[in-house]
């Protein structure tokens, strides 16, 4: 090409130039047509996008630029009955990234800087972001490190504007002032589970919310939470807020005033701790028998709910779940036990009311009774008393806690004495609130078990034997009740038959102090026992403390009525002895009852372990503080 063309390339002289041929005019028409045609194609597409689908694109642009941000409401605080704070809100800082807001192509720079501030390897951040991108929407913040200290949080806050996609997440967390002391009453909070989220998303919960998981925190979640506000903001491509489009202020959660008296609670915990011995766990509660207000509710061992306010270390969780005392469980409400002889109060009331026995009905305890064996007519079954108590009327039987007396009342020897029989006894047990939750304002309450022949047939597949009636009469074998159920039942005996609904909330007040809910005294039902008959039971209980087996519950200056229980459970040890639960239920003053108390110890004796603990509690109420006076005067 070079040689042939060079000549011409070098001859710029317009020697060969002529007027352009006129034939070219058609080409220009074609070119004009091409311009029009190409532009029409563009216009056609523009009309399709801007006119036909303009609305849809405008929505997409709005989705891009508008984000709804939840403004959390301050969670309500909780006070004891005297207004002493039990929980505060504390800020907690976390470092997060919004993967969708990271600068494309410059993520590494952000990872490095962020890693330097929070002390995390950039590689780890990258891995977590990559993993999160495949999992969730890129605009969901991914929390990288929780529980930043204040200085780190400040440093991050400072650098936030220069690090697109990086967020300092400020979460409010709960600080439980009394730590373990109020753990089972207050409960704790935790991150929402996916099941909870499914159930609560309609109420405005997000996947990152925390909510009450136990205790009052859980049962009054809706009151405490308040109503989160919403802010519609315009964000730029880096996710930074540019402008607030609209805003609805949050409504802070209500503050709760509980019925619990912090000083009493402390005293109850101390008394229980002193007397629980080698019990894995123990529980005690005090209730105002006129109102159902729970003045103290203690379950041991306990835990510090503050550990749930930050990420739980595996060893901390293991320490809680592996502990044989099951510290997370509220043993006063969430676990049931054989109530033992405390149940005799109900047997006595039932027998009186049904006309089966009178106060002066007398039996002699030889230390046991023999009942026919219904399976093998040649054998007999022996039901024992704890001692040869001799001749007993009903008062003395209650005071001395004679098993034999109550075997007869329950109908274990129908040939000698027409007793109640298991069905009638079960009906009374249920009337006193056993077998159903008390309805206290705490989650995870259990119902317990009231056995009867139908129940046994259904669950065990065997008929009811007289031997079962023996055990039923003294509150062992199948019968199960929570300490709180026994407290409410004894409360009904004390207050003349009103089965109260126990409650922990006294009042809920909104942020400006107006009461939004005031707890009302609620009588679930009247127990079907006449006042006279209840008076008999009360007298028996007074005698028990004055001269019977519950003498350790006596308190100076106040007449206490009480009933102990020592219920065998589990498998016999090497010496063939069974462990026993130690129980005490009682109330004071016996003549004008104010408070009822229940003490339960997993291992112990009712008379030697539970009763003295109850005495300390009652002594504090009537002698050690002005609580009794305040209650009488209707003051908190």
């Amino acid at each position, binding site marked *: *090409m070079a040689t042939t*063309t060079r000549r*011409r*390339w070098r001859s*710029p002289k*317009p020697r*060969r*130039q*002529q*007027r*352009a*041929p006129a034939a*070219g*005019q058609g*080409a*220009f028409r074609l*070119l*004009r047509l*091409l*311009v*029009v045609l*190409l*532009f029409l*194609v*563009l*216009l056609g*597409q*523009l*009309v399709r*996008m*801007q*006119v036909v*689908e*303009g609305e*849809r*694109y*405008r929505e*997409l*642009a*709005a989705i*891009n*630029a508008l984000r709804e941000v939840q403004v959390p409401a301050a969670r309500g605080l909780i006070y004891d009955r005297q207004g002493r704070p039990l929980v505060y809100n504390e800020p907690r800082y976390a470092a997060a990234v919004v*993967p*969708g807001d990271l600068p*494309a192509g410059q993520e590494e720079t952000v990872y490095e800087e962020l890693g330097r501030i929070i002390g995390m390897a950039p590689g780890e951040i990258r891995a977590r972001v990559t993993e999160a991108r495949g999992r969730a929407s*890129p605009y969901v913040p991914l929390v990288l490190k929780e529980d930043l200290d204040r200085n780190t949080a400040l440093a991050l806050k400072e650098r936030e504007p220069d690090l697109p996609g990086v967020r300092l997440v400020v979460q409010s967390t709960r600080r439980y002032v009394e730590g373990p002391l109020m753990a089972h009453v207050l409960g704790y909070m935790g991150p929402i589970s996916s099941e909870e989220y499914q159930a609560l998303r309609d109420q405005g919960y997000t996947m990152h919310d925390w909510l009450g998981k136990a205790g009052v925190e859980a049962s009054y979640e809706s009151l405490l939470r308040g109503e989160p506000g919403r802010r519609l903001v*315009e*964000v*730029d*491509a*880096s996710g930074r807020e*540019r402008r607030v489009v609209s805003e609805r202020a949050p409504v802070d959660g209500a503050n709760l005033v509980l019925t619990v008296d912090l000083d009493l609670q402390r005293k109850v915990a101390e008394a229980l701790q002193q007397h629980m011995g080698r019990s894995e766990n123990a529980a005690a509660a005090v209730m105002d028998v006129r109102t159902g207000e729970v003045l103290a509710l203690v379950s041991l061992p306990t835990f510090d709910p503050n550990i749930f306010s930050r990420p739980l270390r595996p060893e901390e969780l293991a320490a809680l779940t592996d502990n044989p005392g099951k510290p997370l469980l509220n043993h006063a409400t969430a676990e049931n036990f054989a109530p033992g002889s405390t149940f005799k109060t109900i047997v006595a009331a039932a027998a009186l009311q049904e006309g089966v026995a009178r106060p002066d009905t007398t039996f002699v305890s030889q230390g046991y009774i023999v009942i026919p064996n219904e399976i093998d007519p040649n054998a007999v079954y022996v039901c024992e008393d704890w001692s040869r108590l001799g001749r007993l009327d009903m008062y003395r039987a209650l005071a001395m806690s004679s098993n034999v007396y109550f075997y007869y009342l329950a109908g274990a020897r129908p040939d000698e004495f027409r007793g109640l029989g298991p069905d009638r006894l079960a009906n009374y047990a249920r009337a006193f609130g056993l077998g159903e939750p008390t309805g206290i304002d705490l989650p995870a309450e259990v119902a317990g078990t009231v056995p009867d022949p139908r129940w046994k047939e259904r669950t065990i597949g065997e008929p009811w034997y007289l031997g079962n009636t023996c055990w039923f009469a003294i509150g062992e074998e199948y019968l199960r009740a929570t300490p709180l159920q026994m407290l409410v039942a004894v409360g009904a005996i004390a207050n003349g038959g009103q089965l109260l609904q126990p409650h922990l909330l006294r009042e809920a007040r909104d942020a400006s102090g107006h009461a939004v809910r005031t707890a009302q005294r609620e009588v679930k039902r009247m127990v079907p026992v006449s006042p006279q008959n209840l008076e008999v039971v009360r007298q028996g209980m007074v005698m028990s403390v004055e001269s019977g087996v519950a003498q350790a519950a006596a308190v100076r200056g106040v007449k206490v009525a009480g009933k102990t229980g020592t219920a065998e459970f589990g498998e016999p040890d090497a010496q063939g002895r069974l462990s026993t639960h130690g129980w005490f239920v009682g109330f004071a003053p016996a003549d004008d009852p104010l408070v009822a108390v229940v003490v339960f110890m997993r291992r112990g004796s009712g008379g030697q372990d539970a009763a003295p603990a109850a005495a300390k509690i009652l002594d504090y109420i009537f002698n050690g503080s002005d609580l009794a006076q305040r209650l009488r005067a209707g003051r908190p």
Partner: protein
Amino acid sequence: MRAPHLPRHFDPWLLTAALALAAYGGLLIYSASLSSYPEGIRGLDHPVAKQAIYACVGLLLLAGAAYMDYRLLGAVAPSLYGLGLVLLVAVLLVGDASYGARRWLTIGGVQIQPSELAKLFTIIALARFLTDRQGEMHKLSNFLLSILIAGLPAVLVMVEPDMGTAIVFGAIWLALVTMGGARAGHVLSLLAFMVLAIPLIAVAALGDYQRERLALFFNPNLDPLGGGFNIRQAEIGVGSGGVLGRGLFQGTQTQLDFLQTASTDYIFSVLGEELGLLGAVVLLGLYTLLLFRGIRAASLAYDLFGRLLVTGIVVMVLVQVFINVAVNVRLLPVTGIPLPLISQGGSSLISTLVGVGLIESVLLRHKAIDF
């Protein structure tokens, strides 16, 4: 080449259209850079100020090009063409890369885009070649030589990679050889050959970069936060503008930075979003005026060289406008090509204005004898 007859044939409409487009562009660049320069033009580092300086330089060169006899270009065509090739090779060796492509060359502190110059130089070279071979273009050897002239720079820009500009070279060649008398059979068989070769090219010649861009065109949701992000955001921007637009400086896509490279390759999205269909009609109207006046100039040209020169410039502008807007409205895969006279960038603005100057130069001399 005497001065007195010059003003009579000067086309004011051509210049007006070009100036109006440049001003329109300035307005859009201002809007697109508002989020980075919220306080407006405070100094010469503002994109609009820079663009205005380039426009002034461009206008001076336009005047010079119009004053100069375009026929002189024929004489220096081989040198200009050679210079263009040298620059295109240089950019591959020592160019500045951005967005995955190596397109800029820094000379004496000024960044230039050699492909913009090479386009003009190649038009001149092709016009000269076709004029020299007038009446001989039916020969296959001449036809193949013309392919070589356009193909060399096209291949060099494709390597950058800059597929869009390579296509512009192709379109210029096609228009000029058709007008220059090439055989329809030759042209058609070449086109057929290229169509058949597309799948092969896609596999063998296209880099990962281009294949990825093509894949994203067909499904931008593949990677909504990576390469597909911009396609998607541009589409949303244009679509959300509606008929009247969301108002100048009011487009959320533009002002909240959802749109990247808003002042260059995606400036049409700014217009579509903020000024709507109406703004787009005005824009295309101005281009139509510019191009029609250009075609008029080509049809009036005194000689074949002038006609081919003007046609080449007209086609260059037309194809760039079409490709750029088509990318913005998702009719074509992403390819970085500026919107002539509108997009921010000195090389494109100046070379387009020089092109306009050359058209005027051809017009001014379209009568052999002027009375």
